[in-house]
Every structure is written in C-alpha cells, then in structure tokens.
C-alpha cells in the first residue's frame, strides 16, 4: 500500500502537533500505509521522528505536511513532485514573539508569508478548526476541510502523583509563550485568591519558550502577589492527568489559539472551563465554557462561580460531555481516513 509520510518543522515530547502526528501514524498503520514521521528539529526527549533531511519518498507516496512554523527543510518539500496533504495547525502571529524569541518570531513570520505557497502545493488542505480554516482562506486557499484533532481519551487514563497542597486548584495547561497570556492568569488568580479563596492554588503546566521567558513569568507571578503558584514546566502525561483529576477549574486566557486541546481534556475530566473567547476557543468549547471579558475581577468571579456553584458545575459538565461527542475519536478517525483517501486518489 502507498506510503504516507508526515513532516513537521519541529517536534517535542510535549508538543501537540507531534502528538497528532503520532495519533495519525497509528491510524495510517492500521490502514496498512507505510511511511515514517520526519522533523526539521527534534527537542531532547522526542521519539518517533527521523530527520527531515532523510526523507526520500517514492514517486507515488503522499507527504502530509503539518504546518505550525516554517523551516527551510519543510520549505524544500514544496519542490518535491509527490502528492501533498497540508494540515494547518496555525502559526502564532510573530508580533507576540519579536521581543521574546527572535528566532521563533522569524520562523512564524516566514511561516505566515509562506502559507499561500504551502496551501497551493497541496492536493488536499485541512485545518483543525474553523478559525484556522479562516486563516487558510484569507491566505488564498480555495477549498479547506475542517478535520479536528484526533482526541484520544485512552491517553488520559494513567494517573501519576496528584499536585501537592490543599485548596481549590486552578489549572492552566499550555506552553509558556506570550500569546497564552500567563501574565493575565497571574493577575486574575491573585485577585481570586485575595477576594475569594486565600488557600487557592495555581498550577501552570507547559514548557517555556526559553529560559529567559520562564524567568520573566516567575517574576510576574511573584509580582502579582499570588501565593501557591507553581510553574511546573512540561509534565509527563500521567502527571497532567492527575492534575486534571484534582483541578477545580481549567483557566485559559490565551489571546491566540489555533485549537486548544486542553479544553477537550478538561471536558473529559468534567472540569469547568473559564476562558477568554479568543481564536479557536469559542469554536471548540462552544457553550460549554464560562467566558470572561478580560477584566481580572470578572475572571476571578467566574472562577469562584465555577468552583462553588454546584448547579453550574453540573451544567458545564453536561455540556462538556456533549461537546466531546463532536470530537469523538472514531468520528474524527473516519474523516482522517477519508481525506487521506482523497489525497491519494
């Protein structure tokens, strides 16, 4: 059967795009497709990816390009004659990054400039959210299929150690990068702790953009006056699962999101979500989240409601379960098989 290769600019052990490549690989293998997964750059601890320079596809193979940043090795794929399927996971607007990580800002700036070329080169173009589809259309794509991420509940079963301490646990899951606006999280959490629950805890899970940004976030967390704040960095999946199981609220104040997988994870664990309605968040969470207007005091009150109001918690849990049906594994898997067939036709 035809080989299907996947290519990403960069892969990492806690990276959502790498995780999707792995989930697709499993499906592709089940369907009998050979091929492998390739990356331009692998972070330490990454498994299952080969260097992109080693990709030598046969003429009839399909290359799935997962596009979330530009790299020269990914750019060279456009010259290949093989059929291509583009999966757009969104590229962070570089304005968020120029001051904090110039190298990544360049990758994102060029990535956005090159998006039309990648879309033109692909036989089938996919976005994992309506929001990302909008960006593809704006970049000149003629036809875009929306195929959500493959959400695997089995991944959320193993449980590691629960976070230490007592008091309501506000959980934030996502990389420490400027568009996730952890600065707003600290302010809102500090307000919540001061006015509602002095013993509340904040746990932020996610690797940092770089050491300097991690230090800046720690400084901002300290300056906010909040206590019981832990910036945990990247955690193993079983520890993240344990944190969800313990959490009272998932908070996401991100300003730019291409999908936001933690929303689905929170729904899976029945954890109420308080979110900023930015990017793909309203499209993914629908009516199953509490939306803030950005005022830290309003966010604090919403967290308090989500923690204390039993009826509201139940309603949100029910709505979360309904949202999860929309992202059910088999449903998405079926669409993935269809688009791969379409790209190979």
């Amino acid at each position, binding site marked *: 059967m035809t080989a299907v290769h996947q290519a990403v600019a960069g892969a990492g052990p806690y990276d959502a795009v790498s995780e999707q490549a792995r989930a697709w690989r499993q499906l592709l293998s089940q369907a009998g497709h050979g091929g492998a997964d390739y990356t331009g750059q692998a972070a*330490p601890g990454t498994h299952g990816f080969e260097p992109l320079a080693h990709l030598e596809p046969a003429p009839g193979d399909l290359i799935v390009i997962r596009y979330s940043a530009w790299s020269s090795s990914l750019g060279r794929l456009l010259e290949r004659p093989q059929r291509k399927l583009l999966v757009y996971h969104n590229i962070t607007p570089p304005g968020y990054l120029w*001051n904090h990580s110039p190298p990544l800002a360049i990758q994102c700036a060029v990535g956005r400039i090159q998006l039309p070329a990648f879309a033109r080169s692909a036989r089938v173009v996919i976005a994992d959210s309506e929001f990302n589809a909008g960006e593809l259309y704006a970049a000149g794509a003629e036809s875009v299929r929306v195929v959500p991420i493959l959400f695997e509940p089995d991944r959320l079963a193993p449980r590691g150690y629960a976070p230490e301490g*007592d008091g309501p646990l506000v959980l934030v899951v996502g990389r420490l990068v400027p568009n996730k606006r952890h600065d707003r999280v600290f*302010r809102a959490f500090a307000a919540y702790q001061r*006015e509602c*629950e002095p013993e509340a805890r904040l746990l932020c899970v996610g690797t940092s953009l*770089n050491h300097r940004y991690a230090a800046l976030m720690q400084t901002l967390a300290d300056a906010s006056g909040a206590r019981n704040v832990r910036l945990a960095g990247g955690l193993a999946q079983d520890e993240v699962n344990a944190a969800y199981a313990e959490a009272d609220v998932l908070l996401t104040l991100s300003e730019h999101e291409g999908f936001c997988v933690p929303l689905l994870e929170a729904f899976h664990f029945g954890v109420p979500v308080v979110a900023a309605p930015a990017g793909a968040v309203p499209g993914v969470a629908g009516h*199953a989240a*509490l939306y803030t207007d950005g005022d830290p005091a309003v966010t604090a009150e919403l967290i308090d409601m989500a923690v204390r109001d039993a009826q509201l918690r139940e*309603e949100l849990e029910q709505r979360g379960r309904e949202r999860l049906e929309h992202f059910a594994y088999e449903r998405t898997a079926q669409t993935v098989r269809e688009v791969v067939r379409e790209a190979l036709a």
Partner: protein
Amino acid sequence: MVRRGAGWRGAGREEGVTQPEDAQEQARRSAELKRAEGRYADTSGSDPLDDSILGGKAPAELLSEWAVIEIEPDLLYSTRRGGAPITALKRLLLRLMRQHLVELEARQTRFNLGLLAAFEQLERRVETLEGAAEARAGRDE
C-alpha cells in the same frame, strides 16, 4: 465527584447561577459591587506583557534597539534534563570564540545601523514630498 476534603467545591455562592450564559453578566455585577466596596484593587490598567507584544510594524525606537547586535551568554543553554555541564561547555566555547564573535557582532550592527539610517532618511524625504504635494494641492483648490 467531590473529592474528600474539597469542601469549597459546589459549596454555593450567595447568588447562584444556573446557566453559563448568565455567568459573565453576573460576574461583572459582582465585581462592580465589590469594587464599590474598595475591593479588587490592582485589577485595572494594562497587563504586564501588553507593551512587549507588537501588533503591526515595530516602532522606530525598537528597531534602533534591535539593530545593535549583542551576543548574550545567558541565551545559550541546554534543554536536556541534567544539561548543566552542556550549558557550561557551550558558554565556555562562546568565551573562547569571543574575538571572532565580537567582530561578527560589529559587522552585523554596522550594516543594521546603516540600513536604519538610510530608512529614516527615506522616511523624512517621503514626509517632505508629501507635505509639498499637499501644499500644492491646497493652492490649486
């Protein structure tokens, strides 16, 4: 499921909300009332990262700052677990290569500043020409 000891969970608020759609409005009202009592101090004004996030093009003063290239050793580190010795080695290499790197920094900065000066000169010329064109259009009317 309420976990043992999590007494706050579902403990209830004075004003109960049953529909998520009403929550934001109620949170806003609640926040306003508390603000009127002098609570929620320090929750107005801009957020710490606001100034560092650039919407459109970078302002001129930032371009001048970026034009000067300076290699910072603390940006050099290993991301591996237990990577401290690798970080130390990388920084040592940087020190050993300093003579060469200073030369590179200077050359790149020279080019950047030259380009910036030329850009600023062009901007001034455009402004002058636009002003003259507007004045001419005003006279013609």
